[in-house]
């Protein structure tokens, strides 16, 4: 099959799904709408597979498909096409998107079955998939930006899906505006690259990336990549722009799974991996990325400990895990970053869907303090959720373990790394283990705190099947990227498939040498041990001895409050940025517009009036006074003439 046709179908099917569901938005049948939506994504998934297979058949160095539909903008030197670029990276990415996306669509059929706006919901979801595909496949930064903004728009619509609730609508708005801040930075990054390189085509940019590292802070590549990273912090919820993501949980849970865990939020990481030659050329940017990533890991994980909303916990966990990916990018482990992106997509989607299943079973209840002991009501959900739990806390053998430890090792070992980054990463891992165990304990294990009126029930099959699939992937997904030292002890020495696959397009950081296996094993052991300790601690505290934790929180109440209030970051932002701006605007309006500019015009009018009335007073009706003016004028004129 022709590539262009495949790509066309790839794009067209979600777009058509969007339009069809959009037109029949008043229909309430979840099955029909879900079938259309899911089918659309499934077709895309098939296309992705086809493309992937095609790529497989090509030579490793020439694995790329470039489809150009025509020129979008062509002005002077600016030439932007509707061009799509499928290579190792993007083909894998669209597989994740369409695959996970399809599963989540499937899940949604059950989850949204009672909602009136289900057709609208599926149309939005398809719209999201479409934009995500554009983002991933776009061959230039501008095309990427189209998808970038498009997914933001879809996210806005989906977060605010239940718009009659003002807070949810506000959350959508917040997400969009915060993203916009990142987008603005992204735009500037684009401008910088366009002005200095004369192109916005990603491949051309990558090929133009300087081979000599840029050591200054204000070099073109450093600035450009910094601004692009600024865009990524918005989209991928990093410090300082992560605040929108927890609020984004206002949307339906499958949306959180798809957009705010698996796909959209990883766009920033994808973008950095995509442009890795440029980023490698800017060590300062890399450092910033690494530091911000590491800080985000710790900050988000610490907040996650004190959250009581099941989705909020997962949201902060997502932020934290994204931090890991950026940490990986920052230390130059782009493959590892993408690896973690993939595994994270599996297990975090799984956990979100699991939480969705719980919420569905609990008829909308999200507070984990009101759950507990759900294991017996929701056995399948519990089982799959546990797989995700095992993966995220880094249980050896599960997918999360491979990716996370690779990141930790690289952050220590890479020439761009630092032991402090490793320390932060490990602290994050430890915390992750703690809060995830806490989540498990409070939700599924221990005594039931479910209200008597509620009768939790297991979800239907359409919801469970995606859970199973994702659970399986969470377990085995890690085997595509087994680190070298582990593969060495494994039977058959399975190769790091992922690294091999990415070999031609992802550069490595210069100066990277093979590490000391002993050190690697040691560090791995340390982190796993710490995670294990914190898991056990959490189990002890939340299942065995719940009163202890209460005493403990009482003891450190101020800190606890601070953490559970998310370090008051939202309040800080509102207090120091948003409200001042609004107040400033009000004052600008009141003082500059109304009291200054308008006053000035009135004043000018009054001046005219005043001068008019002064001149009027000269016109007193007395003929002789007039004659006197004439005389004076004559005298003056004559004097002037005489003086010459």
């Amino acid at each position, binding site marked *: 099959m022709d590539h262009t046709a495949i790509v066309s179908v790839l794009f067209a099917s979600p777009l058509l799904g969007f339009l069809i569901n959009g037109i029949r938005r008043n229909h309430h049948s979840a099955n029909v709408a879900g079938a259309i939506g899911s089918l659309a994504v499934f077709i895309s998934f098939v296309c992705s597979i086809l493309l992937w297979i095609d790529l497989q058949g090509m030579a490793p160095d020439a694995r790329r498909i470039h489809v150009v539909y025509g020129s979008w903008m062509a002005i002077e030197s600016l030439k932007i096409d509707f061009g799509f670029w499928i290579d190792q990276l993007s083909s894998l990415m669209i597989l994740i998107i369409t695959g996970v996306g399809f599963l989540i669509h499937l899940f949604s059929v059950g989850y949204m079955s009672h909602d009136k706006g289900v057709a609208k919901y599926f149309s939005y979801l398809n719209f999201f998939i479409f934009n995500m595909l554009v983002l991933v496949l776009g061959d230039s930064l501008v095309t990427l930006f189209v998808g970038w903004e498009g997914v933001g728009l879809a996210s806005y619509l989906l977060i605010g899906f239940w718009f009659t609730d003002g807070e949810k609508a506000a959350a959508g708005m917040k997400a969009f505006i915060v993203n916009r801040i990142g987008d603005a930075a992204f735009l500037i990054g684009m401008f910088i690259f366009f002005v200095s390189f004369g192109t916005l085509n990603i491949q051309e940019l990558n090929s133009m990336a300087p081979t000599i590292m840029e050591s200054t802070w204000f070099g073109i590549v450093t600035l450009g990549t910094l601004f692009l990273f600024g865009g990524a912090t918005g989209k991928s919820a990093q410090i300082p722009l992560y605040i929108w993501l927890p609020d984004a949980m206002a949307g339906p849970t499958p949306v959180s799974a798809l957009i705010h865990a698996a796909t959209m939020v990883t766009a920033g990481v994808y973008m950095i991996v995509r442009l890795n030659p440029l980023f490698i050329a800017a060590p300062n940017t890399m450092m910033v990325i690494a530091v911000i990533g590491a800080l985000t890991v710790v900050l988000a994980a610490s907040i996650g400990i004190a959250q009581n909303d099941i989705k909020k916990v997962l949201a902060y966990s997502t932020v934290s895990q994204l931090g890991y990916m950026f940490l990986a990018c920052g230390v130059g482990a782009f493959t590892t970053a993408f690896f973690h992106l993939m595994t994270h997509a599996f297990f975090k989607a799984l956990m979100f869907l699991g939480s969705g299943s719980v919420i569905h079973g609990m008829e909308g209840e999200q507070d984990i303090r009101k759950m507990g002991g759900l294991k017996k009501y929701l056995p399948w959900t519990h089982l799959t959720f546990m797989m995700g739990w095992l993966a995220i806390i880094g249980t050896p053998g599960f997918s999360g373990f491979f990716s996370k430890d690779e990141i930790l090792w690289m952050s220590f070992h890479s020439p761009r790394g630092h032991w402090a980054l490793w320390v932060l990463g490990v602290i994050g891992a430890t915390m992750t283990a703690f809060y995830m165990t806490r989540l498990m304990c409070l939700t599924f294990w221990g005594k039931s705190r479910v209200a008597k009126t509620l009768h939790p029930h297991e979800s239907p099959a359409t919801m469970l099947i995606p859970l199973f699939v994702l659970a399986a992937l969470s377990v085995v997904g890690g085997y595509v990227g087994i680190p070298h030292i582990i593969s060495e002890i494994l039977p058959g020495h399975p190769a790091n498939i992922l690294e091999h696959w990415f070999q031609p397009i992802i550069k490595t950081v210069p100066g990277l040498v093979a590490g000391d296996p002993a050190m690697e094993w040691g560090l791995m052991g340390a982190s796993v041990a710490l995670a294990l300790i914190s898991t056990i601690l959490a189990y002890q505290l939340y299942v065995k001895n719940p009163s202890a934790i209460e005493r403990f929180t009482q003891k450190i109440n101020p800190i606890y409050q601070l953490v559970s209030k998310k370090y008051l970051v939202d309040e800080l932002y509102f207090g120091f940025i948003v409200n001042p*701006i609004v107040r400033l605007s*009000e004052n600008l309006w009141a003082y500059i517009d109304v009291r200054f500019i308008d006053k000035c015009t009135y004043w000018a009018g009054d001046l005219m009036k005043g001068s008019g009335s002064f001149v009027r007073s000269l016109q007193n009706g007395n003929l002789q006074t007039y004659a006197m003016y004439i005389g004076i004028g004559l005298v003056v004129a004559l004097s002037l003439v005489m003086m010459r």
Partner: protein
Amino acid sequence: MILSTLIFLPVLFAIVIALWPQKSTIRPIALGFSIAHFIFGLTLFREFDPNIADLQLVEKYMWMERFGIQYFLGIDGISFWLIQLTVFLAPLILLASWKSIDKNIRGFHICFFILQTAMLGTFLAFDAILFYVFWELSLIPMYFMIGIWGGARRIYATLKFFIFTMAGSLLMLVAIIYMMFLTQQAFGTMSSSLLDFYKLSIPFIGHEFFSMQTLLFFAFALAFAVKVPLFPLHTWLPDAHVEAPTPGSVVLAGVMLKMGTYCYLRWVLPLFPEATEYWAWIFIMLGVIGIIYGALVAMVQPDIKKLVAYSSVSHMGYIIVGIFVFNHLSLQGSLYQMLNHGISTGALFILIGMLYERTHSREIKHYGGLASALPIYTIFFFIVTFSSIAVPLTNGFVGEFLILLGTYKAIPMAAIFSVTGVVLGAAYMLWMCKRVFFGEKGPLVADAHHPLVDLNAREIVILVPFVIMIFIMGLFPNVFLKWSEASVDYLIKNKANYELTIKGAK
């Protein structure tokens, strides 16, 4: 004769309507006229050659021989799309006025058609005096539109509108007359033809404010700045918009503001290249201030229409910045943004007008939860909103992107500051949308006695062309840009001594 016909056809329409016996059929007749006018405007696509930068379809007759004043019309790539925009909006505006204008229908249509003439004339005139006549003529019907069919404080608004614009253009008249004398000095005979003005070389001394070119430059630039409106001179706009009836607002935002920016391209840049280059920083600065200031002030407006009006200030700021950084990308972007703004803001005003017809309120706080009451309306409103905040694949993105890209190429700091407008634009529009469409149902929306009725067929028919245009312009900008490409290219390449040649005349 195409251009003359294009300009004066509306006058004919106005006369016919003035004499039309049946009052009840005026509206469809006028609509038919405007559609005919639009279709006639489409003939330009056939007649106009986009591949050359020359002045085309020229009509040139001596008007007042002694002063060299001519009846001189022409069209080139810069004005081409503005003409199309003007004729495109007319039927939609008229259709939108069917409900909002309920008194003195005949007078309204006459006003409207004369306004069309004035605006088209402004875009097509290549003689300074003729241009000035059209420029001033456009004020009068607008004055009546706001003054007769406007809101409660319409007299205040009309006065402000009139005095602001009038005060600016008087300076321009002085400058025009002065330049006519310059032509007399240079060529022996007086002439007010723009092409002769182009041939003048006006002495410029950079550091002296009171040098001839600088003064002339500011005389022209100020007149246009009021119309645009540029930052400190913008206060007439919100008042005029709030008090204007829906059609008036649409014309004002859609076309009349473009007259200012268009004239910068047509008059200021080519005539005073050195002064423009030397003083561009002021306008870029004011443009950037306008972008940010307009957005910030729009954010806190309690009135939807006023909010959109301030957003116009912000958007026009982009255009000004794009014009004054003066490179290919930014100029094309500015031209494109003019069209975008005409379509998006025009559609927004029409939408607000439809809402106002239903509830008779524009206070944001009276609304809330409108999305569930008026779903179709909401869809349209959001599409237009996204166009207004420049979401990619809508028209707004192309214009803003090109402007910002060009600006960054020339003055990075200006672009960086302007980009904040992108964020603030999203902020004020979405915040407004959130308060109006989402959340609890507001007092007006929840009123059980007067349930809101969603858009009817007529209103959908009005809005669909806008939406189509939004997406066409967002997806296929090349189609539009190629018509202005040659002219802009020529303007950039010959900025020091810009001269237009007439097509066919060597």
